[in-house]
């Protein structure tokens, strides 16, 4: 090293202002990249959550139909004993059928009555029984009871994808009944609009100026002001013939033509049911309410009766087992490895293996659970106990790694201070190191738990994918968990399960948010203590 000063022969002065401008531009650009990245992430999140909410919000609503039910004593309790057994065994389907017959007196054919009954959820008669059992004094009275609609009616109301184009009809409508068919006349050219519409859509349905309709074609109907509804089977521009869906008066004051698409054959609701639904809706007997069933019942084959309660309780029980097993074990392992274990080849080997375990695909843990927990130890199948144990095995490495990192981040000066005071190694860890590391340990635990909450694959292996109708009451009852429920519903063929699937995803997300919130609150509390 030489002490001679360097000669400043030719000071190369770069253009300072240009350099500064470039540096500032680079900094601005960097900030922009960051903001753009965050903006993009937020956008994706909004699109994702927005999409789920848009599909799923319908599941939080339920359609109910108001029926005037006469609780006749001779049907329910002919002997008049009011004994619970009698009330419980009474035939409430008959009560319901009579009530529906009252609402639609013109529906007489048994098949039609059955279809009418099908508009209500299959749980409707249980609902009536429940009312009677709760309060036998309803017997002998007539009450308007709001009953859950079937999934098809529910979807019809929510999805609103059956387009009904209504046009006021011109001229006085004459109806000439001939058995089941009716001939409609309303002056020359009364049906020109309908005819032109059909000719434009399906020219093949028109022959010699006469249109012949069928279930593969859109529905063409005539509605009268008094609520009558006629389905046209064939028509010309001047005259039409049709079937009666709901009987009109002979000479209605006002009438409308309806074009119903898609064709009847492409819908789950046929024209009859559509007619009944429109009639009920016009009378104000259809309403949309909050769907409490979603939160009070477990899975069901009937979409309108299916809820997430079973899965939520199952998830909760599974997570409790998972937490009880993995948290103490993980923290104890981490404390030992970080604070007490000698650093030698064995502990290195253990550390490498723990890191490897964290990267093992979860389905492998499921297979392990199947072979060891169910096969060898004979744990109950499909139960939260086995599920929680498998998830605990999966979560354990995550917790150990997070806890070790948190313990390692505690400054050594705290340990020295405690040791210098004469605290034993255990006291040092329990009194000083652990409290400081606890927020980090909790964060790691919550991350592990969140992963366990969203885990499906290992639980499929131990049978938690079964269709379970009961809300689990304990750790050994058959149960399912939220992500598996989502998987099951996503697989279900009924259209009504689509919105259920999204709703279950929303519930799962809410569950996660609550867990993270709990973690934040816990962390705050522990941090405030010192």
């Amino acid at each position, binding site marked *: 090293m030489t002490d001679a000063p360097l000669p400043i022969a030719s000071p190369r002065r770069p253009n300072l202002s240009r350099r500064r401008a470039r540096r500032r531009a680079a900094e601005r650009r960097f900030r922009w990249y960051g903001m753009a990245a965050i903006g993009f992430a937020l956008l994706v999140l909004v699109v994702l959550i927005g999409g789920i909410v848009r599909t799923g919000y319908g599941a939080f609503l339920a359609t109910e139909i108001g029926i005037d039910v006469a609780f006749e004593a001779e049907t329910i309790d002919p002997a008049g004993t009011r004994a619970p057994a009698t009330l419980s065994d009474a035939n409430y389907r008959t009560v319901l059928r009579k009530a529906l017959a009252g609402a639609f007196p013109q529906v007489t054919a048994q098949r039609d009555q059955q279809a009418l009954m099908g508009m209500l959820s299959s749980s409707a008669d249980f609902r009536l029984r429940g009312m009677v059992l709760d309060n036998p004094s309803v017997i002998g009275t007539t009450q308007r009871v709001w009953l859950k609609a079937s999934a098809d009616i529910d979807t019809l109301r929510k999805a609103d994808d059956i387009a009904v184009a209504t046009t006021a009809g011109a001229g006085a409508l004459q109806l000439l009944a001939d058995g089941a068919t009716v001939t409609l006349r309303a002056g020359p050219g009364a049906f020109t609009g309908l005819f032109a519409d059909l000719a434009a859509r399906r020219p093949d349905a028109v022959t010699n100026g006469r249109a012949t309709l069928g279930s593969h074609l859109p529905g063409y109907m005539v509605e009268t002001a008094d609520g009558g509804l006629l389905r046209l089977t064939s028509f010309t521009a001047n005259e039409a013939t049709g079937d009666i869906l709901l009987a009109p008066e002979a000479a209605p004051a006002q009438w409308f033509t309806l074009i119903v698409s898609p064709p009847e054959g492409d819908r789950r609701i046929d024209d009859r049911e559509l007619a009944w639904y429109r009639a009920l809706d016009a009378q104000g007997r259809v309403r949309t309410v909050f769907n409490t069933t979603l939160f009070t019942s477990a899975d069901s084959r009937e979409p309108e009766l299916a809820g997430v309660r079973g899965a939520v309780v199952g998830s909760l029980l599974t997570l409790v087992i998972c937490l009880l097993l993995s948290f103490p074990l993980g923290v104890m392992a981490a404390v030992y490895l970080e604070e007490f274990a000698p650093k030698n080849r064995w502990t290195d080997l253990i550390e490498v293996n723990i890191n490897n375990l964290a990267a093992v695909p979860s389905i492998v843990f499921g297979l392990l659970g199947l072979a060891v927990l169910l096969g060898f130890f004979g744990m109950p199948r499909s139960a939260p106990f086995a599920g929680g144990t498998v998830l605990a095995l999966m979560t354990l490495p995550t917790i150990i790694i997070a806890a070790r990192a948190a313990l390692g981040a505690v400054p050594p000066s705290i*340990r020295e*201070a405690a040791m210098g*005071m*004469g605290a034993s190694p255990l006291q040092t860890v329990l009194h000083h190191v652990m409290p400081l590391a606890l927020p980090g340990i909790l964060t790691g635990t919550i991350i592990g738990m969140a992963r366990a909450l969203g885990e499906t694959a290992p639980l499929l292996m131990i049978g938690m994918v079964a269709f379970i109708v009961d809300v689990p009451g304990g750790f050994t009852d058959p149960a399912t968990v939220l992500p598996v429920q989502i998987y099951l519903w996503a697989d279900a063929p009924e259209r009504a399960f689509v919105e259920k699937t999204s709703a279950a995803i929303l519930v799962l997300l809410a569950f996660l948010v609550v867990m993270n919130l709990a973690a934040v609150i816990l962390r705050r509390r522990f941090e405030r203590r010192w």
Partner: protein
Amino acid sequence: MSENAILRAGPSRVVAPVPIVSAAAQTQPHRVNIAASHVDVFYAAKQAIVDVSIDIGEHQVTAFIGPSGCGKSTFLRCLNRMNDTIPICRVTGRIAIDGEDIYDPGMDPVQLRARVGMVFQKPNPFPKAIYENVAYGPRIHGMIGNRAEADEIVERSLRAAALWDEVKDRLDEPGTSLSGGQQQRLCIARAIAVSPEVILMDEPCSALDPIATARIEELIDELRQNYTIIIVTHSMQQAARVSQRTAFFHLGVLVEAGDTETIFTNPRDGRTQDYITGRFG
């Protein structure tokens, strides 16, 4: 450049343990509290302390001085077995406190550390309330039974550390909210709360400003009445100000130990002379 010369010369010389300076040099007689003889310390294969023998008197301040890496802190940490916490560290030789070998297998390091307190270079109060910082030691050693006793020990220790007047109204605040000098005095209060015989101080003022340093030095002088104090320092002025006896370490070897005045005015060894006159280190 001159340091290199010393470094080359250093390890080749075997230095005999320096005996306690003759009674004639001592101004007042002191009972020997800590007696170390032929202490070697190894970090794995590397020898950090070479055959150190020294006697440390009771109720005196003994200063360890020497250039960085000379082993003075390592030797200090042998005195309350803090080196036990380093797995690769190995200590041989005999260190006795009041005639009791502290490296005896029957000696519990936890009890030893209650007798030999320690104050560290960087103030390291526990991230707990000031009160808890002081009460912690007595509590884990079972010295307090009830709240009144704890209050009394806390007040006495804080008064002894000259901190009471500044913190008596905010004992519930975290110890880490104090200033650096206050934190260091809190650490001293924490150390004396368990009534140790010896207090080890490892460069207690190196992280403090001159005013805080002066307060700590004053405090050390007061504490000397009741405690044996050993202080490691980089500042020769500080050693001269606070200590009665000084030991000079160099490259793991105890070069010279004696009355502070003698060491600073009339050192026997050339290296001590070089160090205190600022020719290296």
